[in-house]
């Protein structure tokens, strides 16, 4: 136990992140399933302005980069590709921790348009944590080739968040994506994402616990999501939050 939580923990990472990009005006996280072209989106948005770093104490690498839009400096963090955020693996844990504690101004969920259903699972889970979510419908060209048509305006309405179709390989739709990121990061766009409704019994327990949580956590973290995790028995997450809070206070 030579290293303390403080020296290896996430806060060091954030300190490093913010010191490296001292001119950072907004931080955006890039989430998505593996093989959705997430890295292509990241590379096309940031070009050569990127840097790969290790999550302290973990072997998962996170790439960071930035781009400028309307004169504002926007930092992108490329999270590891995951199918869910239930923290079964180191990758999922890192992705979840960043969305929870990294205080990103928005999360872009990159999805594969040819298998939307599987990709939506992750998007819905991200939307449970934060309302600042943008859905990037990537690989639209492959979807077209496979005769898959997606009504993305309707999708936007159903999800309550911006949906941007792209072909990152050919740089199609990336300007729209940049504009959407900028609008959300600087508060011009206020999404109201769809909330997943669970069964009545679970909802009742959620409400009860949520009320208790709101007093101490509502400024830091979505209390409905936290209540759900606690009911799921994720004590490790709770301990992480306590630590995070006490480090914030110091």
């Amino acid at each position, binding site marked *: 136990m030579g290293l303390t939580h403080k020296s290896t923990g996430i806060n060091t990472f954030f300190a490093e992140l913010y010191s490296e990009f001292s001119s950072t005006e907004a931080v955006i996280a890039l989430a998505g399933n593996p093989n959705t072209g997430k890295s292509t989106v990241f590379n096309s948005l940031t070009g050569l302005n990127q840097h790969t770093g290790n999550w302290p104490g973990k072997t998962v690498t996170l790439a960071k980069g930035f781009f400028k839009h309307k004169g504002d400096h926007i930092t992108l963090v490329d999270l590891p590709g995951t*199918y869910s955020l*239930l923290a079964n693996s180191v990758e999922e844990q890192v992705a979840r921790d960043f969305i929870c504690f990294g205080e990103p101004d928005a999360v872009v969920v990159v999805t594969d348009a040819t298998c939307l259903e599987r990709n939506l699972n992750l998007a819905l889970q991200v939307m449970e944590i934060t309302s600042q979510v943008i859905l990037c419908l990537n690989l639209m060209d492959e979807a077209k080739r496979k005769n898959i048509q997606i009504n993305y305006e309707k999708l936007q309405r*159903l999800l309550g968040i911006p949906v941007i179709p792209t072909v990152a390989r050919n740089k199609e739709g990336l300007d729209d994506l940049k504009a959407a990121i900028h609008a959300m990061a600087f508060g011009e766009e206020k999404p109201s994402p769809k909330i997943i409704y669970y069964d009545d019994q679970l909802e009742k327990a959620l409400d*009860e616990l949520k009320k208790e949580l709101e007093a101490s956590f509502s400024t830091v973290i979505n209390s409905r999501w936290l209540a759900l995790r606690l009911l799921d028995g994720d004590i490790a997450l*709770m301990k992480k939050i306590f630590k995070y809070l006490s480090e914030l206070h110091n």
Partner: protein
Amino acid sequence: MNIMANHKKLLQKARILRKQLGPNLRDRVVANIYQQAEAITQQVVQQNHLKHNLDTIIDIIVTSKIFGYPLMLLLLSGIFWITITGANYPSELLFTMFSGLEDWLTTLFQGLNAPAWLHGILVLGLFRTLSWVVSVMLPPMAIFFPLFTFFEDLGYLPRVAFNLDKFFKKAGAHGKQVLTMCMGFGCNAAGVIACRIIESPRERLIAILTNNFVPCNGRFPTLFTMAAILMGIVANSSHNLTASFLVAGVVIFGIFITLLVSWGLSKTILQGVPSSFTLELPSYRLPKIGTLLIRSILDRTIFVLLRAVIVAAPAGALTWVFANLRIQDLSLIAYFSRWFDGFGRLIGLDGYIIMAFILGLPANEIVLPILIMSYLSQGAMLELNSISALRELLLHNGWTWLTALNMSLFSLLHFPCATTLLTIQKETKNTKWTLLSALIPTAVGVILCFLVAQIARLLNLV
């Protein structure tokens, strides 16, 4: 301090509510998310079906509740049937070729006036063991591996994992354990390394400790040979089809034991709840036959054979020395075998078999050659050039169907080879787990063989 007290209270509250909600909450939550994702997708996605859906149709069949398991059984037996049937002829050819070569070598040694012990060590020990290892192992491996690689490349294995997932979950283990077991078919050491794909340390340990319950290619030849001999003893002919079902039965029994031991571990020293995971079912892809053959023959068959040869050569020479060094009137092998004989017979085997397994610790491939050599050193010197000759030799040494059956069982259920043990030590960095990984299968094997032997004797079946 007030904050800490508050946190404690919150956790308490969560615990109470969690109890009220009952188990499987994670599944309920995940199922709900999936349902909503499906509902939304149906509303916004329009798709021209047909080609894209061929995969889906195949998946519905191979993962269906009715056809899924019979199909797996059929494929497994089919692979074994092709292997056993196909391996017979080249095996006998190799036997004949090597025994011809041996005669030639003997003539050469005699012509050179070489001392008898040198001829014994090099020709009767080293060369003969090598030739048995090659003729017994090469043909089945050269058929089995390409077939297995074919289904691997086709994308069928993730479907098997999908089908078996619920059993592993019930056993408190991880569904991905199936994939590590598939690696174990090739080599248990590789299977143990493959356990790295399981993230949770608890479930990874379960997978590591039970990987040895799938027979590796070092044990497959023994199983194939035993199945053939068993059929020979019982039906006096080699029914390949029945023999292949027998091997498939042994493999399935191994999977059953895996589940049982996993369950036992997850209820005792490795308690916990299985974690959920996403298993991507990749599209089916017709493998390229050329690369498939090259990869399975070079990377697997030749690699495994070379490893076996490297171990078998010195082991063969050493066994010959043991078989021919005499204390009083007994060879060293017979002398030591006597120690194990009582115990061996108690579990339906004999002292030589137990000793062959112990001497075979470096590699499972050499267990059978050592055993054959020990029997041959008993004086009944016969030319061994086919499976039927081997059967004669074994019968001559008091084998019954029970010996052949228990030999199969013990081959499936005993300590892993030295390589695998070293790998487990490296992966777990813990001597306790390594010892346990040797103790558990051995204990299961001894108990099971004992029961089978006692029941068979009680019912006067032998």
